[in-house]
């Protein structure tokens, strides 16, 4: 069986079981390892990607369900022309948010989706949009600051 969808702006046809979680199709079949496995159960957000622009836990969506849709992973942010993504990555780097870094692809995908929908988020907005993304290194102080910083960068 093969499943066809758009991955980071390119059409891909993957020869996979349509029931396979999108996460493993992206990581193992398409070979893009920026999207991480953390829990496999939609509990940690490490696997967050955008499906048609919406943040989605790729560990808990069968790849068959995204047939014909547009999937963006962290590797697709730099070339995707997404203004929020650019601001988020710049802010993350300027504030040195990362520690171990393992959760950060997911954090960045969620933050990008938040800022795309809401360019001036409040702290409460951030709590709501980001509390599905665990960071075991607890980089939360800087994640919050970086989202506010990214919002300023988008205005500039």
């Amino acid at each position, binding site marked *: 069986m093969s499943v066809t969808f758009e991955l980071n702006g390119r059409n891909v046809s993957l020869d996979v079981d349509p029931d*396979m979680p999108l996460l493993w199709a992206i990581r193992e079949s398409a070979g893009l390892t920026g999207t991480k496995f953390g829990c496999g159960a939609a509990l940690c957000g490490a696997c967050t990607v955008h499906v048609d622009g919406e943040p989605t836990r790729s560990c808990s969506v069968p790849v068959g369900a995204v047939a014909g849709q547009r999937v963006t992973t962290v590797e697709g942010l730099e070339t995707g022309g997404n203004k929020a993504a650019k601001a988020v990555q710049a802010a993350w780097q300027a504030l040195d948010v990362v*520690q171990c870094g393992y959760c950060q692809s997911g954090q960045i995908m969620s933050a990008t989706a938040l800022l795309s929908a809401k360019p001036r988020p409040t702290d409460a907005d951030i709590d709501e949009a980001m509390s599905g993304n665990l960071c075991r290194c607890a980089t939360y102080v800087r994640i919050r600051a970086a989202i506010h910083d990214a919002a300023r960068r988008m205005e500039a």
Partner: protein
Amino acid sequence: MIPGFRNERPRTELPAASRRDVLRGGLLAGAGLLIGFTLPARGPAPAVAATAAAGDAVMPNAFVRIAPDNTVTVLIKHLEMGQGVTTGLTTILAEELDADWAQMRAEHAPVDTAKYANLLFGIQGTGGSTAVANSWEQLRKAGASARAMLVAAAAERWKVPASEITVSKGVVSHAASNRSARFGELAEAAAKQTPPTDLKLKDQGAFTLIGQRLPRLDSVAKTTGRAQFGMDVALPDALVAVVARPTRFGATVASFDATAAKAVPGVVDVVAIPQGVAVLAKGMWAATRGREALTVRWDESKAETRSSDAILAEYRKLAATPGAVADKAGDAAAALAGAAKVLTAEFDFPYLAHAPMEPLNCTVKLAPDGMEIWTGCQFQTVDQANAARVAGLKPEQVRIHTLYAGGSFGRRATTNSDFIVEAVAIAKATGGKAPVKLIWTREDDVRGGYYRPMYHHALSAGLDAAGNLVGWRHRIVGQSILTGTPFEAMMVKDGVDATSVEGANNLPYAIPNRSVELHTVKSPVPVLWWRSVGSTHTAFAVETFLDELAHAAGKDPVAFRRAMLAGEPRHRAVLDLVAEKAGWGTPLPQGRARGVALHESFHSFVAQVAEVSLDKDGRVRVDRVVCAVDCGVPVNPDVIRAQMEGGIGFGLGAIMAEQVTLTEGRVDQSNFHDYTPLRIDRMPTVEVHIVPSTAAPTGVGEPGVPPVGPAVANAVFALTGRRVRALPFAKELSV
């Protein structure tokens, strides 16, 4: 509008699909199974080998490589697991090299104990917040040596005295003749110079990089998805392996039926290994489905079958009797008997999982004459030896590629190299026919043991009529982390495991009569050091009990501590600093309260003041934490700040809501719906203040963790009048 996650679930439930996966957990890892190497005696490793081997012309010594393109790469002997060690160690070397920060790179060193031992351990390994402390002199010398060789090469080329040459920001110059060269141009000639024997290190006043805010070297890779973690290793034709492990610690495989598992498309092999039954498949999805289809019968005759409540009840009984002496001064019993007021308190601490964000994994490529391993590991020397033993190879035939680790907090520092050895066992059982990539699921991790041990503490203390603390008895009951491991000889003395009592048997407070005692109990539940080790529980018991005593004595908690710290200026300084910065003693808005705690761990001194309130649902909310830290020379102030922030969040999650419990020997928790680290909505604001210091630098990866629990507990008492003594808070309070 906030974007909704299209497949978000309530985070307190496990989706049905994952429940199957949860059925298997637990890990048998008899500590005696694989150990047998000898740990080199504690002491310095051989001096830095300044080798400029043939063909290695841009390597002035074991720690630095200078490329013709002018990049300078520092070889990092420690594991980067988030603590910022690549940035920290590179800063130290770059400082003495007089390099430009923009030209600096870092990479993990290979396993080579002679060159890359942790000078405080005698083996190559990371832990105990020792990376900067043990590397400080070594890397300063390595940088200064490479600098001197660059200068010598320039002197030779330009035919000028070396003493007239200066180096700044990666450029070697001779002002009088107006010549200059970048490192890259001189590297090859420099590598041929003899390393100098007498090195002059900079005066601290001349530092230009140390003490500055420098961008982390791993930020770009980790924000673009390019950073390579162990989980990202993809060797051609590798098979993914998952292991069915017993549901009770100490059980072994009695028999298994792989028929259904082998019928799952993509499953290639099913093999028994000492730890359980491994399913190998083309990809993780097939491997986990294969494991679900597997039937295993376990021999549980030696397994732990008690519940954690039952184990704790035994701990409580033991605490009523005297234990092995861990610290003794004066006569505690007499002081308590003669005290004007005696207080007692008992504390329970649960098992805790490290739950690093990256589930454990290890890739192994086994050949008859050698083996390559890709993973994020903390104990390279030990891991190499353990892997070699299982594979039937010599340690030098095992090459370890150390990759970024997605967190560890101690989990990757097992003395039996548990997850590495498991991967090697699978590779061996399958005859090395394909590379093996072992992956643990989150359920495997939460149920897999190697927990922070469960502990029970019982304390009694006496105050005299003036409210002075005159007697102190502290009994601790729990499993030993190090008994039965190669570290036993070094760290277990007279029945006292140093990691069980650290933070309790070295109190900074002047208390004339003390008795600190330990009961060590045995269980098949594997236990391990967990970020800040003994201080995870000792600091909580000591610092909350001191708070109770201060209140009983009618004294201010800061003043009460301060009065007992006359001989401890560094403790006193962080306490004073945190009190000043937090506005200790100034009024707070209605409904808010403060608590303070002070603790030294790993030779760093940290004091914190927490402010708490109750939210509209009556849940305890930590609003703000002010932190003062003295870790000697602050090498990278921003990394120190980050480690304090992260340590506070990590410690706060644990005291609020993390616990691993057992019911009839089986772990109750399985994933992040019931093992619940802190999330962003509960993270307080954090202010970090660093004490200026010229003392040799000490660690920051762990010391931020211990004070936050007691500071918050003391604030909760100030707010509500309740003393929480059984962790996590969620057992007694709404959090």
